[in-house]
């Protein structure tokens, strides 16, 4: 049986490139804010969000950098498509939501289920500007 989920990567919050501190990234920010449009991907059961992201970005030729961080019990995404954490200020970084909700734990801990819609978003405000009001 084939298991599928969808993956999308967006950076709408930095389309207005004046927020970026690192000027060299500006040519690599897509004008519409879409780094990867919603794509349906196959996954094998037992894979987590991080493994899906790593595979898809490698296949599509999108740069992605991660590190192993015990604070997140696994992988922590530092940058996608040359857009790194802290490039948009001290509160900026990458967050992911599944089926419209931010799990707020490390992406190696979320195991993908059939039909999940995974969206990776770049935030400049610890999640507040992309709709994550869970912690505040």
């Amino acid at each position: 049986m084939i298991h599928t989920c969808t993956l999308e990567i967006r950076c709408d919050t930095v389309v207005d490139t004046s927020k970026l501190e690192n000027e060299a990234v500006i040519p690599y920010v897509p004008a519409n804010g879409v780094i990867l449009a919603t794509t349906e991907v196959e996954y094998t059961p037992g894979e987590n969000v991080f493994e899906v992201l790593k595979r898809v970005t490698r296949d599509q030729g999108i740069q992605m950098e991660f590190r192993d961080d015990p604070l997140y019990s696994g992988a922590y995404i530092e940058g996608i498509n040359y857009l790194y954490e802290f490039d948009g200020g001290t509160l900026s970084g990458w967050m992911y939501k599944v089926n419209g909700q931010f799990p707020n734990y490390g992406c190696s801990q979320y195991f993908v289920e059939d039909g999940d819609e995974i969206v990776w978003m770049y935030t400049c405000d610890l999640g507040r500007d992309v709709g994550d009001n869970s912690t505040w």
Partner: protein
Amino acid sequence: MVTDAYSVREGLGEAAAFYRSHPLLNFSYFAIVIGVTMFAMHPVFLLSSFFMAWCYSILLRGIKAIRFNCLVLIPAILLMTLFNTLNVHNGVTVLFYLNDNRITLEAIIYGLASAIMLTSVIIWFSCFSVIVTADKFIYLFGRAAPVLALTLSMIMRYIPLLQHRFREVAAAQRCMGRGLKGSSWIKRIRQFGKEVSILIAWSLEASIESADSMEARGYGLRGRSSFHLFRFAGGEKVLLAAILLLGGAVVAACAAGSMSIYYYPAILLPRFTVLQWISLAAYLGLMSIPMVLDMRGIHEWKLSHAAM
């Protein structure tokens, strides 16, 4: 350039004209140059500091400075380039993939740049250690921070002292027939350990005596004066003003971002405008002040010798 006073092999050392300048000049020069070197990552400024550091270290310390500099440069390049390339995967130009991670050209170049920056700083520090001696340090900081000045001067004294003592210990052990050469591996390691423990015991006892004697003489008390002959000679006030002015210009240019460069994702150099040329000229001028002084000192020495 071989004269009686200056041999290329040994370098100028403490015969340098800059050595005889007022400590304030020495310290402010090195503080500004080393400080700016750490922050100016633009290749032109980086390489000019690197080049000047090499020149000055060879002038002061002679041919053996080349060996020291290379001993610092080569491991720095290898380690930092390797470390940066394997840990940072940012960068547009992908050379190859290693275990899902990108090895990029920008990471290699940044590693090289950091290595050159680190080496320049270390070479400048080696020149600093020739020019700014312990008594100059105590003179500069004795009033404001006596304990700090004392600690730093003791550190500067202890490293060559420990080397000298270790050589004595090793020589004594050799005379007693317990030399390091010739025995098996295990025996040599044990003998080395024994020599290190002798060195430590000797140094600890000596430092206790030293501490008692220094306390008895009032070291570390605020306001303790030390004898010094540091006076501002004729043109030195002008020279100090020149150092501070040029230094200030360079620091201001650095703060304004004219020496910055972006390495990731692609290498972005700011356009080289008139401002950059001016700051480069100021930077080169600042760094060459001691070398000009020392060359003039050598020239005057040769003239005075010829007149005899």
